[in-house]
């Protein structure tokens, strides 16, 4: 299985108003930053109260690192065109997240694209 890693530029994001938490606070995420991680899907957890993308990518030293990327509840993903089969193990994707503040490999998902930048699902 080919695994790729690319850490894109960290961008500041100015929000018009702070996001409203769903079932927990979003204080654990740095909502002012965006990080794009390219890697291979290990598993896509289609579960309540959150779905999660487990993405394996290589770090700067070439070691495999597994990222835990949190998404909303399946009901909302469904309404945005997502399905349990949208992401399959072995798929290579780019996932843009607001990263965890504690530096652990994880964050909350902003968007998911194919390696050539085509959107997967929608966010509207």
């Amino acid at each position, binding site marked *: 299985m080919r695994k790729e890693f690319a850490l894109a530029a960290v961008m500041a994001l100015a929000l018009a108003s702070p996001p409203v938490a769903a079932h927990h606070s979003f204080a654990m995420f740095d909502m002012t930053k965006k990080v794009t991680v390219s890697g291979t899907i290990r*598993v896509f957890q289609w579960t309540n109260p959150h779905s999660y993308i487990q993405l394996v990518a290589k770090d700067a030293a070439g070691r495999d690192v597994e990222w835990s990327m949190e998404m909303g509840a399946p009901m909302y993903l469904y309404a945005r065109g997502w399905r349990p089969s949208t992401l399959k193990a072995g798929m290579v994707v780019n996932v843009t997240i607001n990263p965890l503040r504690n530096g652990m490999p994880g964050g909350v998902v902003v968007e998911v694209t194919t390696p050539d930048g085509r959107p997967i699902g929608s966010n509207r």
Partner: protein
Amino acid sequence: MKGAVVAAMAAALLGTAGVAQAQDDSAAGHRTEAFSKLPYWPGYWVSEQFNHTTIGGFAAPREAGSPPLQRLNGFNAPWNEEGRRRQAEAARTRAGRRADGWGYPMMMDAATPFQIAITPEETLIVNAYGEVRHIYTDGRSFPAAEDIWPTVWGTSIGHWEGETLVIETVQVQMPYTYFHGAPTFSEEAHYFERIHLDGDRLVTEFRIEDPVTLTAPWSATITHVREGGYDRMVQMDFSNDRTGMEGGVNTIEPPADERGQ
């Protein structure tokens, strides 16, 4: 003689059946008429605060200048000393808690759509986690004290005032116990709701009285709008909350298969 008796019995039975059929038809007719007078609120309703929730699970920023929306979390309720003590305890323990669902009253102000099914006898409010409120509108009173106890969703009765559903709910477990974002009302709290449709918005006016935790009744108005993208209510349980705690702040725990579960 025997034939005459049988004939008489048959006639009597047929007559009884005819009366019963007429009563059934009348009851069905009354129910159909009652149904026709009730509002119809189809759609997947979501608290306006959470309209257009993204795939990340947070509400999209509202346009600058939008009027503020009220919440049911009780942060601005007129707490008395006991209420403030409970709120302080909740603030101290909230970050390390996990939710079991939304519960009442928070399912009425949640990032989870609900549907409303209205019948003459009861109104059902059902959300995507399978949480259901039964609001009996058949004229009954609350059950006797020995027949009622605190539950996550409480016990509700209601009636219609025109096109407004008026609800009273009692015997709700302290909401914070079930969901750590919920208020810390006591089990003696009495919840009053008035729900009506205002254009495309469902408006719910809450008033909550709680002699244990409040100095005065607390009111909040929650608006719901129809969320698009659904063709059915997909209900799933609350099975994979990976919200963890590290250094006093939340984080994402590793998946269960990496935690040896």
